[in-house]
């Protein structure tokens, strides 16, 4: 009895701990768990889509619900699953890779997470309040501005809130990488994952404001009667498309770049080789980021921008194939002459190369503006982007999770189960999406609720659906592996993979202050250098001293919760002015928390040298 109470108290304390934490490693857990749940929800939506399309003239779900399903699938997967899981990895790994004790803004880091979570929750509440958004994840006006019900309003508010969180998270990582690197960790010694996280954060910084503005205009149009996209009052619906894609195209590189970095680290570790062409890899990353901002109109070839604009954007889009190709070949030549160990992490990585290459190539085919008049808005495009997103981003997430799991959770994921999860997912992936290219060319537009008998589309769709079930099976085995590992596997050592970078020089899981002594970095792959010189650990850059740590805080949670409440107020004030009370209450909570934050001194605390020596020398 008393035991149960103690346990309960233990649980409550743990929850409180996570609600107030500013520790980047715990925030990584929060991002991973919530992003993972959203991935399952998005996956479930994908399964429903595939079941509906299994056979011609199917009516498993209604046409209206289908549109809600694809919209929520796309939105959830991109904003609430892929991005947060990437943030989980960045939080877990980047500070360790640069030898930092913490991120630059621990408080903002936690705020970023809670904003994302409450934004995501707000978006998903729409399922229960009379209809989710249904204008596609691209939300084109005027379909979106005229959509009845409140679905689109949820889209606008949910993405606005979680987008703010993402922007904050991005700035945090930029400053962390600029300012918090350990002595000797020059830019050109940073591991590739850190580099790509850096460029991704830059892209976030410049891409999200365009979305923010787009969402504001959409909000004003729908909730306050403005006329930005209303052609009858002189508005112009194309503005939304531009704003969305000025954000939307960089967004896809925001998704893929960090995983390019993860692949680079993994390939180098499991080939026991230094990354081939390191500086070219860095250069290619920067170039992709830069070009990523000049190509957005390739999503709008059929809008009628005219042949000159279409040609310019076509050619600039194709240019991105060059730096990406540099990456592909550098990976191949990192493995060349290496000693390749096919661990689960490496397996996902190795599978990524051909899958992503196919996806990239169909991308270049799409970039061929005139030909896109045929591909656009067909399953060919669906095939393209799932090849790059699932074959690149999702494979990358699985690879990175296997690789860094010991750092994040202290245990190595079971290797055998890792292989078992891989094969059904991999086979299912190709089954599902390869055939879709042909479906598109055979005349199947995307976002189609159903197709007819006699259009020769049945077989392909059936294969595609079967494939999706394989992917679900693979995902389930992975989940089983997580549970199994937590219960059965032994604790991991500090360096289970014979790693090369700083994160493997400290225990798995690291103490909350990460590095007892700030490491001294003497080159690329610092741990490897020390190992080759026969040392066991990294040379410290400073004598043992007091460590300054930030205090936890509940304020980020409260600020985000306030916006969550205000969100409902904004959505429903159209129906009744009384809802402005919710706006006031919510904004009051948020602004009040902000004021508290800025008026109260929060100086953090110190861990004393003596305590470090006592604790530090133990096994864990």
């Amino acid at each position: 009895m008393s035991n149960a109470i103690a346990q309960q108290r233990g649980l409550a304390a743990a929850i409180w701990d996570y609600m107030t934490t500013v520790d980047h490693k715990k925030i990584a857990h929060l991002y991973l768990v919530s992003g993972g749940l959203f991935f399952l929800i998005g996956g479930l939506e994908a399964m429903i889509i595939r079941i509906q399309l299994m056979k011609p003239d199917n009516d498993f779900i209604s046409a209206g619900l289908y549109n809600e399903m694809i919209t929520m699938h796309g939105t959830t997967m991109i904003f609430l699953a892929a991005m947060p899981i990437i943030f989980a990895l960045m939080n877990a790994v980047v500070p360790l890779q640069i030898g930092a004790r913490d991120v630059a803004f621990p408080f903002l880091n936690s705020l970023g997470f809670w904003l994302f979570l409450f934004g995501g929750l707000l978006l998903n509440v729409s399922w229960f309040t009379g209809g989710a958004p249904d204008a596609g994840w691209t939300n084109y006006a005027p379909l979106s501005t005229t959509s009845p019900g409140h679905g689109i309003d949820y889209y606008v508010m949910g993405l606005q809130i979680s987008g703010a969180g993402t922007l904050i998270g991005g700035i945090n990582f930029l400053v962390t990488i600029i300012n918090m690197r350990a002595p000797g960790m020059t830019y050109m010694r940073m591991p590739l994952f850190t580099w790509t996280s850096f460029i991704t954060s830059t892209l976030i910084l410049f891409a999200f404001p365009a979305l923010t503005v787009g969402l504001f205009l959409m909000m004003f149009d729908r909730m306050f009667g403005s006329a930005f996209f209303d052609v009858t009052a002189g508005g112009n619906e194309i503005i939304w498309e531009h704003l969305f894609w000025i954000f939307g195209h960089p967004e896809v590189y925001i998704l893929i770049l960090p995983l390019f970095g993860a692949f680079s680290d993994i390939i180098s570790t499991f080939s026991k080789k230094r990354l081939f062409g390191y500086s070219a890899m860095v250069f290619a990353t920067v170039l992709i980021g830069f070009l990523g901002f000049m190509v957005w109109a390739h999503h709008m070839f059929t809008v009628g921008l005219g042949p000159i604009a279409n040609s310019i954007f076509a050619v600039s889009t194709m240019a991105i194939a060059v730096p990406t190709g540099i990456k592909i070949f550098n990976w191949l030549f990192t493995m060349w002459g290496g000693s390749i160990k096919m661990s689960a992490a490496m397996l996902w990585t190795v599978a990524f190369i051909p899958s992503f290459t196919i996806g990239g190539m169909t991308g270049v085919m799409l970039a061929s503006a005139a030909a896109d008049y045929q591909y656009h808005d067909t399953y060919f495009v669906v095939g393209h982007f799932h090849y790059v997103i699932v074959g690149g981003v999702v494979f990358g997430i699985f690879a990175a999770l296997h690789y860094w799991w010991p750092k994040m959770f202290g245990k190595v994921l079971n290797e055998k189960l890792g292989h078992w999860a891989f094969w059904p997912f991999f086979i299912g992936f190709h089954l599902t999406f390869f055939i879709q290219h042909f479906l598109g060319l055979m005349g199947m537009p995307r976002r189609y609720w159903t197709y007819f008998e006699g259009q020769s589309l049945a077989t392909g769709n059936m294969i595609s659906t079967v494939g999706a079930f394989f992917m679900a099976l693979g995902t389930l085995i992975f989940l089983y592996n997580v549970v199994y590992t937590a219960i059965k596997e032994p604790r991991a050592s500090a360096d289970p993979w014979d790693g090369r970078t700083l994160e493997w020089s400290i225990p798995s899981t690291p103490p909350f202050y990460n590095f007892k002594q700030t490491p001294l970095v003497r080159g690329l792959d610092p741990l490897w250098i020390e190992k080759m010189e026969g040392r066991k650990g990294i040379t410290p850059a400073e004598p043992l001293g007091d460590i300054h740590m930030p205090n936890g805080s509940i304020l980020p949670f409260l600020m985000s919760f306030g916006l969550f409440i205000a969100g409902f107020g904004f959505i429903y004030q159209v129906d009744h002015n009384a809802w402005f009370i919710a706006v006031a209450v919510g904004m009051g909570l948020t602004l009040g928390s902000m004021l508290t934050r800025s008026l109260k001194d929060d100086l953090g605390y110190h861990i004393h040298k003596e305590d470090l020596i006592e604790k530090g020398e133990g096994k864990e």
Partner: protein
Amino acid sequence: MIGLMGKLRPVFIFSVLALFLAGCGEENLSALKPKGYGAELLLDLMMISIAIMLFVFVIVMAIYTFVLIRYRRKKGEEDFIPKQTEGNKSLEIIWTVIPILLLLILAVPTVQATFDLADEQPRSEDGSITIEVTGNQYWWHFNYPDQEVSTSQDLYIPTGERVYLDMTSSDVIHSFWVPSIAGKMDTNPGGNENTMYLEAYEEGVYWGHCAELCGPSHSLMDFRVVAVSSEEYDQWISDMQNIDAEATPETASAQDGKAAFENSCMGCHAIGNSPAGVGPNLSNFGNRTKIAGILDYNKENLVDWIMNPDEIKPGNKMQGYNVSEEEAQQIADYLMQLDHTEVTPETVSNSSGEE
């Protein structure tokens, strides 16, 4: 242990085989079986790009396969430490320059085709045909301004010449796509008017889709392009110009139907030449091959449509009238005898693919 490629192979073979079974889609729907200038041009462009992609892919896969087989860590090699190569200038230059060249090879025809398809030709002067296309939730209106003819759902064009389309929308964005004749183009509401052209090689009935998400019935917004010889086209135009909207039908049932129609339906539907209304122009409804673009053309389906259109096309705007089942039968009789022309989809020599 079989190499990774060994495991990959069945997947690819399976997909390719499946494709083989499906053929490459229907004659009148697939972009892979072009029946018009645009589609053919674009298929050629696709083929160039596919060739380039295959070339690159083969190279990547060759290196990949070799590396994975040759450099896999073997038993007893656990302690082997490979040489830590930093990079290789000439290799890196090669894989930067070759892709650039390949992309240039692709870029040139891309730009050419893009300008080619944007051809806006001097209109009417040279007698070329211009048709105004209006997308509506969830049907298409076609107006021939020079000929003062309008129709819906079935677009009649002559073969062997360029027909220019001026495209707008009356509500949300749609996209006009006839895969086997040409690429697609969005129809935007407001002043953002687009143009494109169709040039069909062979007579036939080609399937068209709406390709931009436009609401629940987006997937049901199908239409036909009926390509006929130029004599037949002239015939069709003059037949359409001579339609007598007031003509009394022959059968009694159809006469009652006409009355009921004028009573309940004329608010939205026009018979005879008209601008895009709330509902499709039904002047030549008797010549349709489909009802509302998707249902097989027969009386039963038509009555069904009139009685509950929202079940067939969720969210469509045909509503707010009240007819009995019997009236619906009569109206059906009336509408189905509205065939004022000899030129119909059925008479088109090559109406391949229709079920």
